[in-house]
């Protein structure tokens, strides 16, 4: 369970995110977390809830809202992915997802820089009232002093964040001053693996090389955008017009940790259906659902050109406060329940 101070930081983060988006004319939406059919994704296992499933991401419903005429929407919600438990994974986690019509993935990268800059600043200067400091039993006098002056506001120390927009993480200083580093997937694979990304995909070694050789190097001088994924890993991203071998997809890394995944969204229903079929084929080997989200596909024709991104809020809080495991920033972990 989290200390009151950490909960305050979590609350500050949530409020800062909302303030950021509301000041930019986004509207906050809340879509159902239990759904009858999810996005077919071969590598993501949903948690069943009755005959339906808990969402693995709010993507389908949010894009349908774009089809209905919304232009800028964001959502903070819980997502569920079965079997994902580790230092950076929990089966239930908090996602921040947002969409902007008329934009492409480069616009979203710029907005990420602004969002995290703003949130970082807010966590730095947060002044907390009515929060007990963390005390050990031997700190009795401090405890009593605190009780005597309950009205006095306490400055929460800049745990991890310094006012000069530098993130202190794992003994390193990561500059948040834009522009951040941008590295294409191909450049990264050439640089850290000495092989092409395309070749890694063909050999079935892409994920392994990414996790073991590439990711540990990403996002230490500044946060880093890894962009232009091989089209086989396009997911729901649009193919790049000037280079059909890649998709307009990017991931954001800070201190070696993957924080966000954004796309220029694929809005071609037929292509999307083909990609879903391909995922279904892989899924069926695991004996999972064989249904397609037909209502989503039906609405996809009305979705305007847009870009969207999902960001792990727990991980963002983690890097902002200098924690090294997700468990240190979640109100409760599965282990606590």
């Amino acid at each position: 369970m989290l200390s009151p101070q950490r909960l305050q930081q979590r609350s500050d983060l949530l409020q800062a995110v909302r303030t950021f988006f509301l000041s930019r004319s986004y509207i906050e939406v809340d879509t159902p977390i239990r759904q009858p059919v999810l996005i077919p994704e071969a590598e993501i296992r949903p948690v069943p809830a009755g005959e339906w499933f808990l969402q693995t991401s709010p993507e389908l419903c949010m894009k349908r809202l774009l089809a209905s005429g919304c232009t800028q929407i964001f959502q903070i919600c819980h997502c569920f992915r079965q079997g994902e438990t580790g230092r950076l994974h929990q089966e239930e986690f908090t996602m921040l997802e947002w969409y902007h019509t008329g934009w492409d993935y480069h616009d979203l990268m710029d907005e990420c820089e602004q969002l995290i800059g703003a949130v970082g600043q807010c966590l730095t200067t947060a002044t907390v009232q009515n929060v007990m400091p963390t005390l050990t039993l031997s700190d009795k006098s401090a405890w009593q002093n605190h009780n005597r002056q309950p009205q006095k506001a306490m400055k929460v120390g800049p745990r991890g964040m310094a006012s000069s927009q530098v993130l202190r993480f794992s003994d390193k200083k990561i500059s948040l001053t834009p522009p951040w580093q941008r590295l294409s997937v191909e450049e990264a694979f050439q640089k850290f693996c000495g092989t092409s990304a395309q070749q890694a995909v063909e050999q079935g070694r892409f994920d392994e090389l990414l996790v073991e050789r590439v990711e540990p190097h990403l996002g230490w001088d500044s946060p880093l955008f890894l962009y232009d994924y091989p089209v086989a890993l396009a997911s729901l991203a649009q193919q790049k017009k000037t280079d059909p071998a890649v998709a307009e997809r990017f991931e954001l890394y800070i201190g070696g940790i993957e924080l966000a995944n954004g796309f220029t969204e694929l809005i071609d229903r037929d292509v999307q259906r083909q990609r879903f079929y391909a995922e279904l084929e892989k899924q069926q080997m695991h004996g999972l659902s064989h249904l397609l989200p037909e209502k989503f596909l039906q609405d996809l024709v009305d979705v305007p050109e847009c870009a969207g991104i999902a960001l792990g809020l727990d991980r963002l809080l983690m890097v902002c406060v200098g924690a090294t495991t997700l468990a240190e920033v979640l109100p409760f972990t599965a282990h606590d329940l």
Partner: protein
Amino acid sequence: MFSASDLRKGLKVQIDGEPYIITEFDFSKPGKGQALYRTKMRNMITGNQFTQTYRSNDKFEKPDLEERTMQFLYSQDDEFHFMDTSSYDQIFLTREQLGDNISFLMDNMEVQVLFFGGDRPIDISLPIFVNLEVIRADPWVKGDTSGTDTKPVTVETGYKLQVPPFVEEGDKIQIDTRSGEYITRVKE
């Protein structure tokens, strides 16, 4: 059978016919990519360590491991002989197999012997606490330059450790076999 998602620190699995224990474990997964189960393992027979990354569909045999209560009888050269307290069967393990356990092993001590494949002894586990007699203790010199409030002693197995100044030759002390550290002085 275990699948990759069962892997965790401390789990014992069989690979190529030999038992391994997982000493480090990390789950990692790119958001849209495959789950990767990164492990560091130790071969329970040879002690060799290696790191390996597994995928969701990898499977592992359960090693045939069994613990039996046995009594330590005697050692001869590098062979340490034990007897099953119910069947009176006798077996031995080598000095190399026992490693640091030798520091705490006393005649007639009951230990758990780990068998692989039914009849192959590969390891022992000691009681967590053992009582051993101090056979050599130097007097404590106050103001010792090391700046610590402990002094070195030797116990009857030949093991040396740091204890508080009041422990004297002939005292029995309790030692935690997991850390090898002094716990308390024992009154007979």
